[in-house]
């Protein structure tokens, strides 16, 4: 009986789920920066709320939070650089003369978020990403709302 069921399960067409998830080339969206920056904010809040870890379990948990914060801050910086250097072109600079400074400051905040464990810094990073979100969609003639996951 089990063999019959197994055969049926394979013969009947099924939807596929991907173990890969390669992003489509040429598609730009500051949402990828926002997701990473939100993860940084989330991890930072958890670390601040938890306070000093006194047990081995707590130290292990906090080490993992810190690792994610570090990783996601770096990812946010990489995603910012992709937008800055690949999507934005000289004509955008004419429309947004502070573009370079905006990206420079946002990238610096990614580094600050790694160095420090500060909710204020993480929130500043989110604000910088929101500013870039607004510039990006305005450059496309759209007015997409700023929406966060949490």
């Amino acid at each position, binding site marked *: 009986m089990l063999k019959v069921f197994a055969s049926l*399960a394979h013969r009947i067409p099924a939807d596929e789920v991907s173990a890969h*998830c390669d992003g489509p080339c040429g598609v730009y969206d500051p949402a990828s920066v926002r997701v990473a920056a939100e993860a940084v904010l989330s991890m930072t809040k958890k670390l601040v709320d938890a306070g000093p870890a006194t047990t081995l379990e707590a130290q292990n948990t906090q080490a993992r939070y810190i690792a994610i914060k570090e990783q996601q801050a770096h990812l946010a910086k990489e995603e910012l650089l992709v937008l800055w250097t690949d999507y934005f072109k000289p004509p955008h600079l004419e429309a947004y003369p502070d573009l370079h400074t905006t990206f420079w400051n946002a990238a610096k905040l990614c580094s600050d978020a790694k160095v420090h464990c500060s909710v204020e810094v993480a929130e500043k990073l989110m604000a910088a990403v929101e500013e870039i979100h607004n510039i990006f969609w305005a450059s496309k003639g759209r007015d997409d709302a700023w929406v966060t996951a949490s």
Partner: protein
Amino acid sequence: MTQQPVPAATNVEFLRWILRRRARVRIRGDSMKPTLSPGDIVFVDTKAYRDFAPHDGDIVVATHPGEPGLQIIKRVDFTDGEHAYLRSDNRDDPRASDSAQFGLVGFDLLIGKVTACVRA
């Protein structure tokens, strides 16, 4: 984290599928090897997270946070009460992407829990 294997489907699990208590999907890609391989069929309990949060180690089907049309299968590394951090079992697959790339995934994007598999 120990990568717990997915149990082989039993007659009961097949009956649940026939009674529409389980969804059925086929694996594409290598990033969940050795736990799951391309062509494997897995059964998914789409009601598993209606009342309960996912546990560390659960294998889940989720909507990709950056590509709403893409369904992915990953393992829950840890949760923070509202989000799950999803990882691939095959850390050597250079094409694999998971929460290390796309960040935390909200529970609302979790489609269900993988309960059993039928090997290709």
